[in-house]
């Protein structure tokens, strides 16, 4: 067993080395700057360390992905420092459409720019999940790691089966689940509930569950309102998937009678995921999301 694994690893390394040795110019990009966290994650997922990421501290605060040492911060995602990016001498800059409205021309002077569109105009069931995988492939292709992207996607796909099994064993096959993220302020906490076009809803389906929140798909994949919304889905399961910044808000919500009287709270069908999840991330954050939703439900 051991030698075969070593062999496989060796082959993989050789493959990587072969790609790395590809000539510059039209070939795969080596020095990449990511202006949005999910593209930084895509790069890390296929084994490429970006030279620059926008708002590294924010990425480590809000997403479950850690950034390796040596990656430079290039400023905020809304107004990244063009000079810092230029100083990094990148050969590729990856950014979503909405972030580079002002800066596209300048970025193009610095390097090739790959423009992404994570929230397309027309969206339906699974849209954002498909876009997430598609963008991973595009990013991987740009850095010459197409094969790695396919491997990452296969591994993500495979990761659902054992989780599905665990959920089934717990009697949760085809269970209806609403996933919410807390928002707003402590004084007026709001709730973002994920609609069918979101990555989160797609993950639920891949876990053999059903998205209980059937409001019409919204652009960013969630509706925003108060906790009274949960009355509509109180017979189903509910999962708080939240960045830890909101834990105080969630505690505040759970103190209210309007929460404790919900059937889902009374019957113990309301769960909070442990640790950080980021529902707008790439394959790594999505995998963590799937694991943590499962962990919270099975408990």
């Amino acid at each position: 067993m051991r030698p075969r694994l070593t062999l496989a690893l060796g082959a993989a390394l050789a493959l990587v080395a072969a790609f790395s040795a590809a000539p510059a110019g039209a070939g795969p990009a080596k020095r990449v700057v990511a202006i949005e966290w999910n593209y930084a994650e895509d790069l890390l997922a296929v084994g490429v360390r970006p030279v620059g990421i926008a708002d590294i501290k924010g990425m480590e605060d809000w997403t479950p992905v850690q950034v390796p040492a040596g990656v430079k911060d290039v400023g905020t995602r809304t107004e990244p420092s063009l000079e810092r990016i230029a100083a990094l001498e990148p050969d590729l800059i990856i950014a979503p459409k909405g972030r580079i409205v002002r800066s596209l021309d300048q970025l193009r002077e610095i390097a090739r720019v790959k423009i992404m569109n994570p929230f397309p105009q027309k969206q339906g069931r699974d849209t954002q999940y498909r876009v997430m995988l598609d963008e991973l492939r595009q990013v991987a292709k740009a850095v010459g790691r197409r094969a790695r992207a396919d491997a990452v996607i296969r591994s993500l796909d495979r990761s659902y089966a054992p989780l599905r099994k665990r959920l089934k064993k717990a009697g949760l096959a085809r269970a209806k689940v609403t996933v919410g993220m807390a928002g707003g302020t402590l004084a007026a906490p709001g709730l973002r509930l994920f609609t069918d076009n979101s990555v989160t809803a797609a993950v639920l389906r891949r876990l053999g569950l059903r998205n209980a929140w059937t409001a019409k798909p919204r652009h960013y994949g969630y509706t925003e309102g108060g906790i009274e919304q949960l009355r509509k889905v109180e017979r189903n399961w509910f999962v708080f998937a939240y960045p830890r910044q909101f834990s105080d808000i969630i505690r505040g919500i759970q103190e209210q009678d309007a929460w404790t009287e919900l059937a889902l709270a009374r019957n113990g069908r309301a769960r909070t995921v442990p640790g950080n999840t980021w529902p707008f991330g790439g394959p790594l954050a999505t995998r963590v999301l799937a694991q943590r939703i499962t962990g919270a439900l099975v408990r």
Partner: protein
Amino acid sequence: MSGRAAAVAAAGVAAALLAALADVLQGQGGMTVSEALSALTGGGRALDRAIVEDIRLPRAAAGALAGGSLAAAAVLLQAVTRNRLADAGILGLTAGGALAVTAISAYASTATAGTTIAAAFGGVLAGALLVGALAAVGRAGPVRLLLAGMAVSLALSAVTAAIRLVRETETGGLFLWGAGSLMQLGWGTVTAAAPAAAAGLLAALLLARPLDVAVLGEAAARSLGQHAGRVQAAAGLAAAVLAAAAVAVAGPISFAGLLAAFAARAARPRNHLELLAVAVPWGAAIVLAADVAARLLLGTESETPAGIVCALIGAPVLVALARRLPAETGAVAEPARAAARRRPRLALALLLLLPAAAAASLCLGELEVSVSEMARAVAGQGGPLAEIAFDLRGPRLAVALLAGACLAAAGVLMQGVVRNPLASPDLLGVTGGGSLGAFAVLLAFPEAPSGLLPFAAFAGGVGALAVVLLLAGPRSASPSRLALTGLAVTAACTAVTALMLLDAQPEAGVAVAWLAGSTYASGWDELTLLAVPAAVLLPLALLAVRRLDVLALGDDAAAALGLRLRGVRIGLLALGASLAAAAVAVTGAIAFVGLMAPHAARLVAGGGHRRLLPLAIVLGMTLLAGADVLGRLAFAPTELPSGLVVAVVGAPYLGWLLLRGRAVAA
């Protein structure tokens, strides 16, 4: 209390109760009306009772508390300023609270409810102090104070927007609150704010009689043995406490207080006690009705802030009120020329700041390029690195300089026409119209290239001014009427834009980024877009200095000197609006430059426009170029939008100016 006032007050209470009942019957949980009714009367499911008790009743209570407090605050502010158009929202008090809460959320995400409320109080109080300082020096006329309040309000909102741009993820949850949402969970916020509201209301009731005397004028008040200053200060403080309570529970809501006081005056109350008794219940009714209407019209699937509806109702009422204002005729005291001294040496020192800022902007940055290399790059013979650095810094500097010049010139023109040293380009709807123009184009043509946006913003800005001129009516000559109409149009534009944003329209983010109030990433294309109108409009402005000087003499003198007042005013306003719109179209809404540069120029150049305008232009250039380089370098690689930097410098400057009593005198 007169029978009529008592009847109208009782009707207000009934209306508020009815609106509160309707509000409690609405909600997002899919509860039927009969389920809600039985829950309200203590029957039905335990969950429904809990929802009514924890969510719906606090929401109605928040609406009543916010509306009543804003109404009482408006009554107090109207008495203090002797102006029936004063309102906590219009005077910038709620904007101060919103800024403070946004800043707390942005930089201390674990802030407790108590801290948040305390921040709201701090912010409102700061806003109130600014207004109080204005009141102390604003003896020249109540309309001036109102304009100052509007300018403060617009500027504070611009800072709030900039903070939200920088701390996007942290402030994302503030969107609903920031537009004036009544959403509550539990009684925590309402009970925390209630004592403040009660104290403010009690103070208002106690102050009712002294205010009856105070509105007679200072001389009359003094002869009746009243200390006018103390009464004004107490009333201002009470208004601040009331506004803070409202902001804490419902975010910044404008116009509700104005509408309530307006409605209350229809009952012809005999004194301030009666006025309060009528206005407070009607204020509660108005905010609650706005909340009910918003959810009836737009559904309950997502939350619709009541503040947006209040603005949409309030704006036309304000226009109507402004039209009723008597046109000011005759000379308006303009002490500028008499009071201001010329300080040539200071002027020279200020002029030298411009090349310093420009040099710093070209030579400093993340890309290390020596001064000599940069000089070669400017001449077109630099190395590749220097070329990139120059391509990034050169056009950005030039855009900052030109936008600063345009905004400063627009400020001088508008202040000259409105005859208020606190008027600013935002006041006439240019900024609000610009945003709306960009959003409207993106909504109608989602795939429109972003190159179209500056043109849409420019058209929106100038179009908004046209609407203002039309609405202000045939006698649009009246400066205060113009300014008020401008404020109403701005508020309506902002509300419509917020409505569009609510449903997270696909391309809204693009327009938000475009209109962020920043010189960030300005390139050669943006420079061309700005340089062409600037090259035409700035010389025209310089040619208008004599007319501005004549206008400053007052209407009668100007007419006697043969000036066609109406035509000249409209022409100068159009020129100012075009200048401001050209800047807004490229850099978004940058506040304070159009206010501050003319001010500072007046301090050193005196009131004559021949010197004032050029110096203001130079100062505007220096200010924005300096803010740009500071925002780029201070926390590199994190950039601060230059609009935010200008405001951080500008707000204390304005405060200092007001405290020194120069705002009106200089």
